[in-house]
């Protein structure tokens, strides 16, 4: 909190050009974005671009961005993605989970693609639609959900300035959605680097239950930036299991933010897996606003090459008897850099809070780096809070055991690395998701070229 005071938000030199560019983009696109005729939405976008002009892109002088330089993103002149030609259905196949029976919504460059989607039949009390459709049919309905976002960084501001489409999922009280919702976001490469914005609004009534899977992928190798903002509101006793799989091309940067508000006795479980992207930044914040709420954050990041992956999580225990569990695992090879910043906040009066957090990292190459910062901020005394962080390499004894049985170093390293990742995957409740992830992890384990690092 106090760490942010002063400096940090100043627009760095040369940033004026970026601001000019996005002001231009705003003027160019304002008339063509969904809901352009709605006054409050226009104002919201204007607020966004004005805020961006103030903030610019964050710099590493900002405590929250000290390990993540976004200079490569700031140097790009992104074009607001216009509706792209919808690819053939076969193109979608690699991003689906075989055997998964889900309500599927597909977005291409941030716009809803009805041709590829299969929402299926929805039970009563479930409203699942594209945000653009909601804005067209009943814009006032979306207004409270879209207006409340605090614009903390230039990315939040850009997101709001070019807010276009996304997902609307609303469950009435007591409704349990049996089939999961699968949201597929595809970026299609264009000649110029594109900015794709996605906004997901999830609202669960009292005791409602749902599972939502968000996939992010790329077709082709076009460059660009995806900004995704997901807001989740869970009423009393509601439960959401939220999956995210980020497997975009290394030329695409990804800045995402999830904001969760949890009511009394609600349960929020997040599994966030980051495998792709150039610079990836995920901010996940859950506020336990009601007594007895439960929050579970699991995460897995695997990066190689020159990838940079950064997770910032905050669990805000505002009320008593809250429980939180957090496990994040990172596997870094090549010249990759991983960042984990996990903040647990226990507010005054949030007695009987029970919180555990763990950050574990494997460094597999000489050029890789990991920066981890698990934080506890506690203002109540009758609480149980602990956190742990480790950085290390594969166990030498285990490697020796495998090698003594004739398994070569690279294969042995692969086995053990997959075992390390499996811990996170095992916590997911959907078989089809687990199975595909297990296969993906195999292909992402840094290959034998980094095997020269042996203890």
């Amino acid at each position, binding site marked *: *909190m*106090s*760490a942010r*005071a*002063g400096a940090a938000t100043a627009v760095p030199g040369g940033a004026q050009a970026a601001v000019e560019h996005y002001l231009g983009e705003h003027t160019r696109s304002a008339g063509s974005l969904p809901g352009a005729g709605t006054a409050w939405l226009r104002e919201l976008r204007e607020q966004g671009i004005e805020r961006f002009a103030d903030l610019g892109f964050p710099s590493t002088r900002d*405590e929250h961005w000290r*390990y993540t330089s976004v200079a490569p993103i700031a140097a790009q002149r992104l074009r607001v993605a216009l509706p792209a030609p919808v690819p053939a259905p076969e193109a979608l196949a690699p991003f689906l989970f075989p055997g998964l029976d889900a309500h599927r919504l597909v977005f291409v460059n941030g716009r809803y693609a009805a041709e590829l989607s299969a929402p299926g039949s929805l039970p009563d009390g479930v409203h699942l639609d594209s945000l653009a459709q909601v804005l067209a049919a009943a814009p006032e309905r979306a207004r409270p959900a879209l207006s409340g976002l605090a614009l903390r960084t230039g990315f939040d501001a850009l997101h709001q300035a070019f807010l276009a489409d996304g997902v609307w999922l609303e469950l009435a009280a007591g409704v349990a959605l049996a089939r999961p919702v699968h949201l597929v976001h595809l970026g299609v490469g264009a000649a110029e680097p594109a900015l794709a914005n996605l906004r997901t609004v999830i609202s669960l009534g009292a005791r409602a239950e749902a599972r939502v899977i968000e996939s992010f992928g790329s077709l082709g190798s076009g460059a660009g930036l995806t900004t995704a903002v997901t807001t989740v509101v869970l009423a009393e006793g509601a439960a959401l299991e939220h999956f995210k799989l980020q497997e975009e091309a290394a030329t695409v940067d990804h800045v995402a933010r999830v904001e969760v508000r949890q009511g009394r006795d609600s349960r929020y479980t997040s599994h966030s897996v980051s495998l792709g992207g150039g610079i990836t930044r995920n901010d996940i914040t859950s506020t336990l606003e009601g007594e007895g709420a439960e929050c579970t954050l699991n995460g897995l990041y695997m990066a190689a090459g020159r990838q940079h992956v950064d997770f910032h999580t905050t669990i805000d225990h505002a009320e008593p008897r809250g429980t939180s569990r957090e496990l994040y695992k990172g596997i870094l090879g090549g010249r990759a850099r991983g960042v984990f910043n996990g903040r647990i906040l226990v507010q*005054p*009066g949030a*007695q009987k809070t029970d919180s555990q957090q763990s950050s574990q*990292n494997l*460094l*597999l*190459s*000489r050029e*890789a*780096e*990991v*920066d*981890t*910062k*698990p*934080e*506890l*901020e*506690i*203002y*109540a*005394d*009758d*609480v*149980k*809070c*602990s*956190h*742990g*962080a*480790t*950085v*290390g*390499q594969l166990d030498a004894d285990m490697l020796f055991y495998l090698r003594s049985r004739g398994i070569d170093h690279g294969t042995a390293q692969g086995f053990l690395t997959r075992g390390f990742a499996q811990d996170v995957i095992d916590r997911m409740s959907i078989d089809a998701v687990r199975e595909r992830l297990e296969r993906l992890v195999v292909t992402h384990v840094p290959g034998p070229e980094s095997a020269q*690092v042996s*203890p």
Partner: protein
Amino acid sequence: MSASSETVEELVHKAYPHGFVTEIDADTVPPGLSEDVVRLISAKKGEPEWLLEWRLKAYRHWLTLREPTWAHVHHGPIDYDAISYYSAPKSRADGPKSLEEVDPRLLETYKKLGIPLEEQMALAGIAVDAVFDSVSVATTFKEKLAAHGIVFCSFSEAVRNHPELVRQYLGTVVWPTDNFFAALNSAVFSDGSFVYIPKGVRCPMELSTYFRINASKTGQFERTLIVADEGSYVSYLEGCTAPMRDENQLHAAVVELVALQDAQIKYSTVQNWYPGDEEGRGGIYNFVTKRGECRGARSKISWTQVETGSAITWKYPSCILRGDHSVGEFYSVALTNHYQQADTGTKMVHIGKNTSSTIISKGISAGRAQNSYRGLVKVTKSADGARNYTQCDSLLMGERCGAHTFPYIEVANPTARVEHEASTSKIGEDQLFYCAQRGISPEDAVSLIVNGFAKEVIRELPMEFAVEAQKLLGVSLEGAVG
């Protein structure tokens, strides 16, 4: 617990036992800071030209810096022009040759603190370089140390008698431009201690300095430099108390340690500056830069601290592990009560191969106090085989206090192993009940439990300090649970 509430009340409001002011004519420079003040300080101390230049450079750099705001503490703005940057007891003019020549009222002050010099010389065998405000007034056991070739004297004396040593090492660990408070200290430091242990010498006694802030509105800017040459060993003790004052006083010290090949430095602190009253008025602002460098192979630096005083503590004794196989250690107990705020921890920077570091931090927070651990473990690319283990535990007493942990872990070498764990707990009702059953009063029970909680750190302290520290923890916390 209610049965003991009267005692509790009484103890909670217990006045700071070391709060008194000694009336001595202080040779004080008018408040404010400018190049002229820096020149004046340097001139008063009869310093050589190079040191004045060094101070001025630091001062000019300080002007370009802004006061840091990242620490998890809150305080009103500090008016650096309202502080007087130099204060020396008047009787210094001639320089005391022996204890008899020392101002008797000064000696009385030490007596009240329970550290009479004569007794300590006789009983404890400790050489005390007592710093009263800013100028050393008495130094003992010099001859015995001199026989080993050990230099242990005030900083100004070292500048006069060993300028080559001072010049070689001063500012090489904490650069004059390092941070806001270090730059300020470098510009205006008044005095402090200097230690040099020659090659292969094991210092035959614990070296000790008592610091004490006295004159009102006088910031204290100590500078300590300890150099352990190849294969030597030294254990240094630092302890302090301060008299009661309503106004906040700034203390911005710099401590530099240099350990050459195979050398070991053990630096222990008991810090008990005036913490302010129970309403949070007054108290010392303790903004200190302490850093040691393990410059040679197989060298070792160990910091042990018991922090119970100061309104605000902002302190990170650190180790730069440059030499291969060098070792850094940090053992800390930080106790905050009433409105005290502490943001303390360490930095372990692994540069050499097979370097290892251990961090044990125990934070105890009571009343409305805020206690933060902030630490950095950095493993650079070159630090093959680096190893760190960190444990941070917090004990909370009362529902309005806070305990926070901000560890930064940066690893850029795949052969490194870094582990960090932290936990938070409170004193259990069942623990207190168990003690009560056995006739142990709540105060004694709390003291017992807290001392048990802090044991891993206390046992690292030299004997004399361990006893004092245990008492201090008990006294500082009495009545915090009830």
